[in-house]
Structures are given as C-alpha cells and as structure tokens.
C-alpha cells in the first residue's frame, strides 16, 4: 500500500474473453462430471435451477461491484434495493396493472430512490472527504431505513406475486415453474445485455473506466459527477430487476430477503474481483450454479452455506477474485 497513488491502471482491456471462455469450459466440465456421477436428469435439473438463481445474483452483483469500484462504498443497502424493487412491483401488480408495467415502474422507482440517495447522502459525503467508516455507517443506516420502511408499509409477512406460482412446464425430463422459466430466460438475456452494454455502449465504457481508475477518469475530463449519478441509477435499476427476478424465481418474498441474499451478491462480486463488472456477472453465474449443484450432495438447507464457503475461500485463496481487480491485501 505504499504510495499506491502512483499505481498504473491495471491492464484489464487485454480481452475479457479468455477468462470467460475458460470459465465456461470449467462449468461444462463440471456439468459433465456431475452428469456422470449423479445422472443427467438430476444434474441437468440442478443446473437449470442454478441458472435461474444466477440471473438475480449476477444482476444484483453488478451494481454492488460498480459502486464499490467507483466510490469505494461497500453498499450494505444494495440488498434492500432488491427488496424495494420487488415490493414496488408487487404492490403495483396487486392494484391490477399488468405485471410488465408494474416491473417497469418498479425499476424506475428504485432507480429514482438510488439517485435521490446519491443526491442527499453520497454526494455531500463525497464533498466532505469522509472516511471509510463514515461511508460504511451511512450505508448501514440507509439499509435499515429502506428495509424497515418497506416492512412498515407492507408488513413482515411473506408475499407472492399472486399468480399461480404452482403452474409448471416440462422441458424433456426437466421440470420448471412457469415463473421460474420466465426468470431464467429474462435473467440470461439480461446478463448478456448488460455484458454487451458494458462493453459497447458509451455509458458502459465510462462506468468501467471510472471503476478502473477514478483519479485518471477525472483528469481525462469525464463528467464524474454525472457519471456517478448515472452509476447509481444503473445500479438501482439492475437491483430492482434482480429483486423482481428473485420474486419470480423463488415465488415468495419478505422484507428481509434482500439483506439475506446480500452476502451472495458480495460473494459474486468478490469472486469476480471487486470493482470488475464482468467479473460480477460471471461470479453470479458461478454462485448460482454452485449453490444448486451442492443440493446434489447436501441437504438443500445448506445452500447458503455453500455461498459462504465460496466467499471465505475466495477471500483467503484468491483475494483478487478470479478475474482480478483491486488488490485485497494491505
């Protein structure tokens, strides 16, 4: 950590594809192995379930990692953005509007809340040159305010989208709830879309540049203030999408769900290398798959524990994550 300021930008533009392709190979190999050990039907089912989970973990983790990369904030409120998105969608849908419209409005509302928080809390704190500790406390405070405001209005009971959460489809030997199928397809499509957006759109490039090196981005004349606001909006929107996908995939939600899966989101972000948006997407896929694959061997109630184990192992063995970004050691 000596004179870190003189660090040159890490050479991350050296093509993102190889690690992703490498990861795909590992996943396919693992799948083949599992199919051999447990039979293709069971292994396939777990994989499908894993991809369903991957959608919301990956999309939730992108915002978390971008905010950390750009602002050095461990956003403990990020899980509660997911909760907010899911609840707003649910409330609007309950009032009779079509579900897609409810989802779109929920995304807007969550993005607006994220932007408002930036304006009210984070921007003033940036101007004050606050310490890590202050940022952390503010994030924790926002998390509590969001979570319990939701609980205040919606109650702490479990809720569902009200649609027939038991209807299901069969894909050959595999079985999937209708809502889960929607979550699966939407999740994969959105992961790809976000990945492409980060790579090819001006906004995506700008956010990656910021996340790489804030100081450098500032001198190269990027409008950092606007870009930061935009990052919050994107993070909020993606979190809302992730929350809605979660509600669709799991079927039921309560006001705590976001804070409970926050650790999975951290795991995906750390696994992908904190600050690395592509890494978070891929990390999310790994977490989703690993947790569901574990059910082939362990009781399903240990699923979250598998996520924790991956987090701890990553921190100990590969603190820069698979795709490397911010050094984790002092």
């Amino acid at each position, binding site marked *: 950590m*000596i004179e870190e300021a003189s660090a*040159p930008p890490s*050479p991350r533009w050296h093509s993102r594809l190889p690690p992703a392709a490498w990861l795909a190979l590992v996943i396919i190999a693992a799948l083949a192995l599992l199919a051999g050990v447990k039979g293709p039907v069971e292994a396939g089912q777990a994989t499908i379930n894993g991809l369903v989970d991957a959608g919301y973990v990956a999309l939730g983790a992108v915002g978390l990692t971008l905010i950390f990369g750009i602002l050095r904030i461990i956003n403990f409120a990020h899980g509660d953005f997911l909760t907010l998105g899911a609840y707003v969608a649910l409330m609007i849908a309950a009032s009779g509007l079509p579900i897609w419209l409810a989802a779109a409005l929920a995304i807007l509302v969550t993005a607006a809340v994220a932007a408002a928080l930036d304006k009210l809390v984070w921007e003033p704190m940036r101007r004050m040159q606050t310490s890590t500790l202050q940022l952390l406390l503010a994030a924790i405070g926002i998390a509590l305010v969001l979570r319990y405001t939701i609980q205040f209005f919606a109650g702490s009971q479990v809720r569902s989208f009200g649609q027939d959460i038991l209807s299901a489809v069969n894909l050959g030997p595999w079985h999937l709830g209708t809502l889960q199928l929607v979550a699966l397809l939407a999740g994969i499509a959105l992961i790809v879309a976000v990945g492409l957006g980060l790579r090819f759109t001006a906004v995506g490039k700008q956010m990656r540049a910021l996340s790489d090196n804030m100081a450098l981005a500032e001198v190269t004349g990027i409008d950092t203030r606007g870009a930061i606001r935009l990052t919050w909006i994107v993070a909020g929107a993606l979190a809302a999408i992730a929350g809605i996908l979660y509600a669709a995939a799991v079927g039921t939600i309560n006001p705590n769900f976001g804070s409970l899966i926050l650790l999975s989101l951290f795991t995906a972000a750390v696994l992908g290398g904190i600050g690395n948006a592509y890494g978070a997407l891929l990390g999310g896929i790994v977490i989703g798959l690993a947790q569901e694959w574990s059910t082939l061997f362990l009781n399903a109630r240990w699923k979250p524990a598998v996520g924790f184990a991956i987090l701890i192992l990553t921190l100990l063995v590969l603190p820069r994550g698979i795709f490397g970004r911010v050094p984790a050691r002092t």
Partner: protein
Amino acid sequence: MTHSAGSPAPPILVVEDVHKSFGGVRAVAGASFALQRGAITALIGPNGAGKTTLFDLITGFAAPDAGAIRFEGKPIEGLPPHSVTRRGLVRTFQLTRVFAAMTVLDNMMLAGRGQPGEGLLQLIARRTAGQRVEGEVRERALAALHRFDLDGKAGDYAGTLSGGQRKLLELARALMTDPTLVLLDEPMAGVNRVLGSRLLDDVEELRRTAGMTFLFVEHDMDIVMRRADHVIVMAEGAVIAEGSPDAIRADPRVIDAYLGQARSRT
C-alpha cells in the same frame, strides 16, 4: 568503528540483483550494492528511479520478485516489516507518516524497543518492570525531542506539526528503535536549511558515537557531496554507478542520467 575505504569489516547490508515489477512497470530491475558498516551513504537517482521501492523491498513492505537481501549476513527478503525493524534496520517514509491523533511524545514513546507494557500478560506479570521501562522510554523520548528542537511540541498532537517538523519527528522516532542501520527517504525535503544541517550533524554524530550506518535518499546534490562518504546512483531500477562523491561527480554516466537533469532543474 573506522570506516576507511580499506576496512575489512563485512558489509552491513548486501543487495544482490533484486527485481520488482508492478504490473508492467519494472520499478527495480537488477539492483545490486553493499553498504559499508558505519558509513553514511547517499542513494540518488532521478524521479521514478526505484529508490523508494528499493527501500520497501529492503524493509519488508514489498517482496522482491527475485534477488537476495542480506542484513548482518542473514537473508531478510520476505520477512515482515516489524521483524526487519527488530533486527535493527529501520526506515522512514518519503511521504511522512506520523500518528496524527497521538501526541508527539506518544509518537516517540511508541517506537521504544522491548516494552513489557506492550504485552497483555506482561502488563500484569511484569507490572513494575513495565513501569520502569515506561519511565526510561519517556526520558529518552524527551531527550531526543530536545535534540530535534521538538520539545516544545511534546504534548501537541502530531497532526498539528508542520511538514518539516513531521520529517524531524519521523527521524527521531525511527532512532527510538535502537537501529544499527537507518534508511532515510528524503529526510531533508521540506526542512529548513539550518535545521536540516543540524539534522545531518546529528546523523554524523550518531554514526561516530553509536556506530550507526545510514543510507539516505536525497535530491540536493550539494548536501550529497558534502555529507556522504559514498554515493550510489540508481536509474531505471538499476544501480548504474557508485563511488566517492568526487568520483560520482565526474562520472559521465551519472551526469547523463541524473546530474544533467538536476542542474537543469535548479
């Protein structure tokens, strides 16, 4: 404790073909030299030559990619910083690092070596010894502060010191660890000339009375020429020349790599 050129005493520090890269930047690339015991050696080189990185490598703040570092004949590469310091090799930082929310006196006392009061068990088991040592450390700290003209500041928070005063405090604090070899990273930067010259007098006196060895980074050639027994020149991560100040002054490679630059600056 003589330090004439022909002294047979083994070198106190040996650096052999040390390498360190950060990503694509080769900060130190094959640096080798030996430090004579009891000498005051200057390490010079243009900005970015790798001097500070070399200090980090020697004192355990970074691990070399390759190469060997021996202090008092024993390898120290890869040791954590506190172990290096406990062996008697202490360093200061180019960007000063004082404990801002501690008093100047506490900054000094912290650095005292072998304090029983720092162990949770010894706090109780060796209570009286701890109190005695604490008293001694305080005496020494106050004496050292007096020597560096900081005794008026003993009770102030270190964060209130000026840049030059922080440099002085850092040197004084490093000396509290009872070192045999002291690495100073630009100790004179920001210190006024009178005080800086006092500081160097003190360094010379410590060398004479306590036999300490010094290696210091300095950009001011006048100071280097007047004060150093020996000069090591780095450029682009390697040692390109070393010798007496006069020899260095005349060395065309050095003029090329460094002095020309320094002259055009001043």
